[in-house]
C-alpha cells in the first residue's frame, strides 16, 4: 500500500510537530501518528490549542493555530507524537468583549471542546474539586474501538415497550444493593439487570448521563448540614461525553468503555436504552455564570440572547441553547448520531423539548428545522424520539408538538387525568375514556404510540408519595418548601405521610395497584418510575434534584417490605405483554371490522352496554376490548373487560355477554389481598356469575374472556 504523506509533519512549535489538520470531524480525533484537533468559532480573532498532561494544573504547551490552519471559521491542526491516554486539551480564544452585542471572549480562560468525547476533572463522584485549577472540565481524546461483537440497537416495536425511568447513581448507590462493583455506577447497574428482567421492563430511560458537574451550585443544607448537589444532572457540561462519576472506571478515564459495556449487556438481555438528553441549556448559567466552553468560544452563536445581549431563560436555569441556529443544530445532530452509532443508543427523550422548536429570538416556529431534521435523519431513523413537550417559558405543546410522524411525547395530560380520577375528582369520565384509548383527542393522526403514558416521573412525587401526601414537603432542599410543583393532584389516603394505620396502608397499596393496572391496560407506551414497583418514598419531597441520599437512592430492602407491590407490578407488566390487544399501533375504530360480534372497543357502565357519560356518574368507567381485533385483526387474543370504581363503596357492574361461548375469568382485582389480586395468564379463575361482578371501593378489576 502506498504510504500517506499526511502522516508527516510540516510545522514545528516548541518541539511539537504539526501540520494543518482536517476540518471535520470537529473535536479531537486520533489519526496515524497523532491527534487531529478541530474547532469552530465565527467571532474569535485567534485560537490557541492548550495541552496539559493528564490532571496537571499547568499547561504543557500552548500551540497557536497558524493562519494557514484556519479554513473559514474552523481551526484545525494535527499534533504528532502525543500520548492520547495522557493528554488533556483545551482552547484559548481571543475576540471581542462586548456583552451588549453578545460577545464574551476572555483569553485568560481555557475552554473545553464542545465536542469532547471524554471529560476529566470530575473523575470520581463527589470528590472535592481543586477550585484553583485553571481548567475544571478537561477535554480528552478517545479511541472508538469498543468490541461490540454482534450487538446493535434492538429496534423493538415502540408499542411493545415498557419504559423504566431511572437514575444510574440512585439505582445501586444504597448499600442494600449489595453490588460487587463500585455502588452507583454503570458497572453496578449491570449487576441488577436480572431484577429489571424479572420486573418485565424492556427499556430503561436514564436520567442525564452526559457529563455534568455535581458541584455546580452545590451547597450545605440549612436543615441537615449535608452537601446538596446537582444530583439529577439536568445541566450539561459536555454533550458528547458520558458522566465520569457514573463509571467505576472513571478514575482511569475508561467511562466510555464502561458505558458501552452496559449498553451491550442491556441489549443482550433484551432491554433497550433511552437517554434523557438536555439540549435546552448548558451548565454555564447566565451573565454571572462560569466559563466552561460555549460562552468563551462563540457566545452569540451558541446561546439565545435578548437584543441587549442578556441570556434568554426559557429553561428556568439561566440560559437557553440556540438550537435552531444552523451551527448549533448541526452540533445537536452530530451528538445524537454519535450516541446512536457509537454507543448503540435506542432512543432519546428530550428534556423541555418545546425549546427546540423556538427560533433564535425565542418565538415558537411552525416548522422547526431541528425537529424536522432529527425526524428524517438516516442514522437516527430507527431511534425512538420522545419529547417532553413543554418548557419553562410557558410553551405547552402536548398534542401539538411538531412530530413529523416520528416524535412521541410525554403525555402530561394522561398523568393529570389519572391522578385526579383515582383520587376521586369529578368530571373526568370523558377524558379518562380518551386517555385509556391512547388519547385520540390529542393524537388523532399520530396514533397511540405518540403517547408516552405515565403517572409519575423524576419530577414530582413517587407513586407511593402520591397516595401518601396531600402537599409537597421539600424543606430538605433548603428553599423553605418554595421549590417543586404545587399542583400534584395527590391524596394522602387519610393521613399525611408515614402511618402505622393498617387500613390506610392497605388503601395506599390498593391505589398504587389501581394506577399500575390502568397504566398497563391503556393504549400508548407505559413508563414507570424507578422504585414505584416497590413503593419507594421520598418522604413527600417532590423535587429531589439535589439530594444524594436516601431520598433518591433505591433501598433494596423494599423488595421484601413491599413484596406485594413488586409481585403485582411484575404480573401486571406481564399481563400487558401477554395481551397483544393492549399494544396497538393504531387507534380503535369503535366498530367490529373483523366479524367478531363485538366492536374493537366498547364502553359500559354499571349496566352492560350502557356507558353513563352524564354528570350523574363521576366514579365509574368500564370498557371491553375485543381480542379478535388485536393488531388490526391479525392476532387473536382474549377479550378484555376493565371496570374502574373510584367510589368509596363497592358497586356491581353488569357484564357484557361474550360471543362464541367464551367466558369471563378474573385476571386482576385490586381489592383482593396478594396473591389473589392478580393471576398468571392461564390460571385466572372462572367467574361463577357471568352476568355481574362486584368491584370493591376504590378498586379496579380486569377480566379476560376466552
Amino acid at each position, binding site marked *: 500500500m502506498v504510504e500517506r504523506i499526511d502522516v508527516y509533519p510540516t510545522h514545528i512549535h516548541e518541539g511539537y510537530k504539526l501540520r494543518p489538520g482536517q476540518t471535520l470531524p470537529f473535536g479531537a480525533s486520533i489519526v496515524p501518528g497523532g491527534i487531529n484537533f478541530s474547532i469552530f468559532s465565527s467571532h474569535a480573532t485567534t485560537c490557541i490549542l492548550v495541552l496539559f498532561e493528564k490532571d496537571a494544573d499547568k499547561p504543557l504547551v500552548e500551540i497557536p493555530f497558524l493562519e494557514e490552519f484556519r479554513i473559514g471559521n474552523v481551526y484545525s491542526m494535527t499534533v504528532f507524537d502525543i*500520548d*492520547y*491516554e*495522557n493528554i488533556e486539551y483545551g482552547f484559548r480564544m481571543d475576540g471581542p468583549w462586548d456583552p451588549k452585542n453578545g460577545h464574551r471572549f476572555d483569553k485568560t480562560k481555557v475552554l473545553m471542546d464542545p465536542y469532547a468525547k471524554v471529560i476529566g476533572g470530575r473523575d470520581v463522584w463527589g470528590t472535592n474539586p481543586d477550585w484553583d485549577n485553571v481548567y475544571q472540565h478537561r477535554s480528552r481524546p478517545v*479511541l472508538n*474501538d469498543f*468490541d461490540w461483537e454482534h450487538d446493535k440497537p434492538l429496534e423493538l416495536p415502540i408499542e411493545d415497550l415498557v419504559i423504566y425511568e431511572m437514575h444510574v447513581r440512585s439505582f445501586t448507590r444504597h448499600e442494600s444493593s449489595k453490588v460487587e*462493583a*463500585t455502588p452507583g*455506577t*454503570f*458497572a453496578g447497574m449491570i449487576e441488577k439487570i436480572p431484577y429489571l428482567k424479572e420486573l418485565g421492563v424492556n427499556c430503561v430511560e436514564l436520567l442525564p448521563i452526559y457529563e455534568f458537574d455535581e458541584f455546580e451550585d452545590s451547597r450545605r443544607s440549612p436543615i441537615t448540614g449535608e452537601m446538596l448537589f446537582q444530583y439529577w444532572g439536568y445541566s450539561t457540561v459536555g454533550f458528547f461525553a458520558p458522566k465520569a462519576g457514573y*463509571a*467505576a*472506571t472513571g478514575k*482511569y*478515564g*475508561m467511562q466510555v*468503555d*464502561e458505558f*458501552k*459495556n452496559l449498553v*451491550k*449487556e442491556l441489549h443482550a438481555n433484551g432491554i433497550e436504552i433511552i437517554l434523557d438528553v438536555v439540549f435546552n441549556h448548558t451548565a454555564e448559567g447566565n451573565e454571572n455564570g462560569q466559563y466552561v466552553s460555549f460562552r468563551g468560544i462563540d457566545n452569540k452563536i451558541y446561546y439565545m440572547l435578548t437584543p441587549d445581549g442578556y441570556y434568554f431563560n426559557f429553561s428556568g436555569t439561566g440560559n437557553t441553547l440556540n438550537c435552531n441556529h444552523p451551527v448549533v443544530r448541526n452540533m445537536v445532530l452530530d451528538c445524537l448520531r454519535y450516541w446512536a452509532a457509537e454507543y448503540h443508543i435506542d432512543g432519546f427523550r428530550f428534556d423541555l423539548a418545546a425549546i427546540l422548536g423556538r427560533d433564535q429570538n425565542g418565538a415558537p416556529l411552525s416548522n422547526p428545522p431541528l425537529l424536522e431534521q432529527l425526524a428524517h435523519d438516516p442514522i437516527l431513523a430507527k431511534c425512538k424520539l420522545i419529547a417532553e413537550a413543554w418548557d419553562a417559558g410557558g410553551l405547552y405543546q402536548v398534542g401539538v408538538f411538531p412530530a413529523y410522524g416520528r416524535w412521541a411525547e410525554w403525555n402530561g395530560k394522561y398523568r393529570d387525568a389519572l391522578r385526579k380520577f383515582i383520587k376521586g375528582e369529578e368530571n373526568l369520565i370523558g377524558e379518562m375514556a380518551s386517555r385509556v384509548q391512547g388519547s385520540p383527542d390529542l393524537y388523532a393522526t399520530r396514533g397511540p404510540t405518540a403517547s408516552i403514558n405515565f403517572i409519575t416521573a423524576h419530577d414530582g412525587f413517587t407513586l407511593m408519595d402520591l397516595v401518601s401526601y396531600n402537599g409537597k414537603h421539600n424543606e430538605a432542599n433548603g428553599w423553605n418548601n418554595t421549590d417543586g410543583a404545587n399542583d400534584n393532584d395527590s391524596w394522602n389516603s387519610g393521613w399525611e405521610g408515614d402511618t402505622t394505620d393498617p387500613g390506610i396502608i392497605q388503601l395506599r397499596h390498593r391505589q398504587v395497584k389501581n394506577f399500575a393496572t390502568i397504566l398497563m391496560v391503556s393504549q400508548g407506551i407505559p413508563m414507570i418510575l424507578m422504585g414505584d414497583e416497590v413503593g419507594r418514598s421520598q418522604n413527600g419531597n417532590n423535587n429531589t434534584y439535589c439530594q444524594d441520599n436516601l431520598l433518591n437512592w433505591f433501598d433494596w430492602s423494599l423488595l421484601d417490605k413491599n413484596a406485594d407491590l413488586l409481585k403485582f407490578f411484575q404480573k401486571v407488566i406481564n399481563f400487558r405483554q401477554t395481551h397483544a390487544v393492549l399494544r396497538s399501533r393504531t387507534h380503535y375504530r369503535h366498530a367490529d371490522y373483523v366479524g367478531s360480534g363485538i366492536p374493537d372497543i366498547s364502553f359500559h357502565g354499571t349496566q352492560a352496554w350502557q356507558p353513563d357519560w352524564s354528570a350523574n356518574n363521576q366514579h365509574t368507567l368500564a370498557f371491553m376490548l375485543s381480542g379478535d381485533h388485536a393488531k388490526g385483526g391479525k392476532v387473536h387474543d382474549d377479550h378484555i373487560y376493565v371496570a374502574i370504581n373510584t367510589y368509596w363503596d363497592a358497586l356491581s357492574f353488569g357484564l357484557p355477554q361474550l360471543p362464541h361461548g367464551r367466558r369471563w375469568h378474573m385476571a386482576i382485582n385490586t381489592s383482593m389481598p396478594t396473591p389473589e389480586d392478580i393471576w398468571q395468564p392461564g390460571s385466572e379463575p372462572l367467574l361463577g356469575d357471568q352476568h355481574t361482578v362486584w368491584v370493591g371501593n376504590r378498586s379496579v378489576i380486569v377480566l379476560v374472556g376466552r
Partner: protein
Amino acid sequence: MDVQTKPFADATVVEVSGDVDGSTAPVMQEAIMAVAQPGCRLLIDMSQVGFMSSAGLRVMLILHRTISGGKGNVVLVGLSDDIKDTMSATGFLKFFTTAETLDAGLQALNNG
C-alpha cells in the same frame, strides 16, 4: 515496565512487571504478539503489574482477537483485584480465562 518470555512446562509464559500505560503498552504488545503464533499456549503473568490503562487492555483484546477461533489459547494469570475490577466493568474480562497462579493457568490451558 519489563517483559520476559520463557517456557513453562509445555506453555509459554509472558511475565509482565510494572505499569502498563500508553507509553509501555506498545512494548508489551510487541513481546506478546511475537509469541501469539498458531497453536500457541500462552500464560500472561500479570502478578507484577500494578496498573494497566486502557491501552494495556486493548493489547489484551488484540491478542484475544489474534488467536481466537482455535488458533491458540491464552490465560491471564495473577490479575490484581483492581485490574480485574476494571476489566470486569468495561467488559474486557469476559473475553478471557483467568487464573490465580501459573500452575492453575496451565490447568486452565489444558481444559481450554
